[in-house]
């Protein structure tokens, strides 16, 4: 167990170091920070002064180590575009993205899991065929187009839901939430739905595939032979074993959902991390780009690690293998 944990942690550290190195290279060699701060026609002495102030005159290894130390303290430097500390900007935008991603995942689970179970149990029914067709459309339709269509239908044609922004938010000191006001909730509906469409289709297909696999297995056949009622077989025996891989996938999807929020936030002008990232890419603001890279990598790595541990806790076979 300890060995397994240490190995995983080691791998995680390597990944994070690699990503930080890439971010460092981007941070240092893309664009000219001195020009970005002073403008094109600054005097040579002014350039020197800024270079010295930023520490650009030191050897590369020293700069990487000090960058690493800064990153560990949560200091990603100043944004070229906004002139504010990157960390402040990110902390400011984070709640909007988290709320959007979690709402989207909530919707996706509420719809995706039941649809998946139904389409596995009723393998050949007409309803299943409709669901499977719909799920293929859900996977084929680009997220941004879902957003455009939702705005067209619900904001423009019906005029019932807002098409941009976050509505009124409540400041809790360290977190601003849109969950507590009617306009905040209304503003959440369309973005959360459009981010959920792909996930619904994805979760449904995964749950179905897992469930079909489990239904075919010996112990389910055996339960059937024992004459247990169908509902008991499906929900007590089959679904339970289906849920383990599904939980993994959902955890992994949550990370990509936060990344995918980039697109949805752009469609709905949702003031979150994703919109910030896109604006930074368009303006070639490398400080924010590299900070975002490191943060997203950190998020994914933590989720991956948590999933591995979860597997370890759930699956006795893994424990046995590692114990040997």
């Amino acid at each position: 167990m300890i060995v397994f944990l240490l190995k995983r942690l080691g791998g995680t550290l390597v990944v994070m170091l690699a990503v930080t190195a890439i971010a460092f290279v981007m941070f240092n060699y893309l664009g000219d920070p001195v020009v970005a701060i002073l403008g094109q026609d600054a005097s040579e002495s002014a350039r020197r002064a800024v270079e010295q102030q930023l520490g650009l005159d030191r050897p590369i290894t020293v700069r990487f180590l000090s960058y690493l130390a800064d990153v560990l303290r949560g200091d990603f430097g100043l944004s070229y575009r906004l002139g504010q500390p990157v960390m402040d900007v990110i902390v400011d935008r984070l709640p909007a993205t988290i709320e959007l991603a979690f709402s989207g995942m909530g919707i996706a689970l509420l719809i995706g899991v039941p649809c998946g179970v139904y389409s596995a149990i009723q393998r050949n029914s007409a309803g299943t065929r409709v669901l499977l067709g719909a799920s293929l459309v859900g996977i084929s339709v680009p997220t941004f187009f879902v957003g455009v269509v939702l705005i067209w239908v619900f904001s423009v044609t019906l005029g019932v839901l807002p098409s941009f922004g976050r509505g009124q938010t409540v400041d809790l000191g360290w977190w601003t939430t849109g969950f507590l006001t009617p306009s905040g909730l209304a503003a959440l509906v369309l973005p959360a739905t459009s981010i959920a469409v792909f996930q619904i289709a994805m979760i449904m297909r995964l749950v179905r595939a897992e469930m079909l696999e489990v239904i075919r297995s010996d112990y389910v056949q055996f339960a059937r032979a024992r004459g247990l009622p169908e509902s008991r077989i499906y929900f007590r025996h089959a679904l339970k074993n289906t849920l383990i891989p599904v939980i993994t996938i959902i955890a992994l999807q949550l990370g990509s959902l936060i990344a995918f929020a980039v697109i949805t936030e752009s469609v709905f002008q949702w003031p979150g991390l994703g919109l910030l990232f896109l604006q930074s890419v368009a303006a070639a603001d490398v400080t924010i780009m590299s900070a975002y890279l490191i943060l997203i990598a950190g998020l994914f790595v933590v989720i991956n690690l948590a999933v591995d541990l979860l597997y370890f806790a759930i699956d006795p076979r893994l424990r046995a293998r590692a114990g040997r």
Partner: protein
Amino acid sequence: MSDPGHTPDTSPAAKSTAATGPGRILLALRSSPLVRSLRKDMVASAAFGVLLLLLVAAAVPDLFAPYQVFDLTQIRLMDAFRPPFWLEGGSIEFPFGTDDQGRDILSAIIYGLRVSVTVGLGGVALAVVIGVTIGLVAGYVGGIVDSILMRIADVQLTFPAILIAVMIDGVSRAILDNAAREDAAVVVLIIAIGLSGWVEYARAVRGATMVERRRDYVASAQLSRVRTSGILFNHILPNVLTAVLVIGTIHLGVAILIEATLSFVGLGIPPTQPSLGTLIRVGNNYILSGEWWIAIMPGLALLVLVLAINLLGDFLRDALNPRLK
């Protein structure tokens, strides 16, 4: 995706195409089990037909598009904001309506299709070349080379492809100035898609190569002193192509979506030579004022294109996977 890496290819179709010339390929295709099962599958045949039509239209847009939409002399502002033909004020002259400058949406879609398909195919081709090479080398050489290459793949897999593509695009913006980047937009997107998508191929090909490596035909090639590159590309490669074909089809759908998404958020193809994503981006400005068709019609075209590709991908995966039979 069900793991194609563990399905060593034994289908006669792939074997014969690898070994024969173009004329005999056609013959082999007609009697191949793949084509026979395609004929039996109505949905897949329809998807194949639609895709073929779209690809041909993308290849020779001049034959299909009623208007030369990007010819500035043909712009007629009188015809601006015409709705599609089934709405009041629309005419069959412009079946899907016109945009703010009086350009025919259908023609714009057909030319946009060309850009989207070019970028998609280019990106997939690049990803195939990188991924297959890395997969063959990693699977055949093994050892430390394998560990390093697969570690890199793991790191990359932690990020969604779309984010990597956005990053690469951002890097291109920091390196190139604006005008140069606009000119190179197609190339930048192909590189972004190729570099963000090679991992799946590498993993599948590596798995298949590790199986093939122990076969007798590889041993006999080694004994007759065929060069390693010869063994990899002439002997092993044809036998892992099935997996590449399945992944490639599904990846093409993803690649086209990545291109459209980047173009939609303004990081992809510029409006001077728009792709479907660019058209939707431009049309999105008119959604709020009610001219919905400028964005929705290109979006539907994109949806049909990707849906057809995905249907075909699903069919190929099932048809080529012996475990499901």
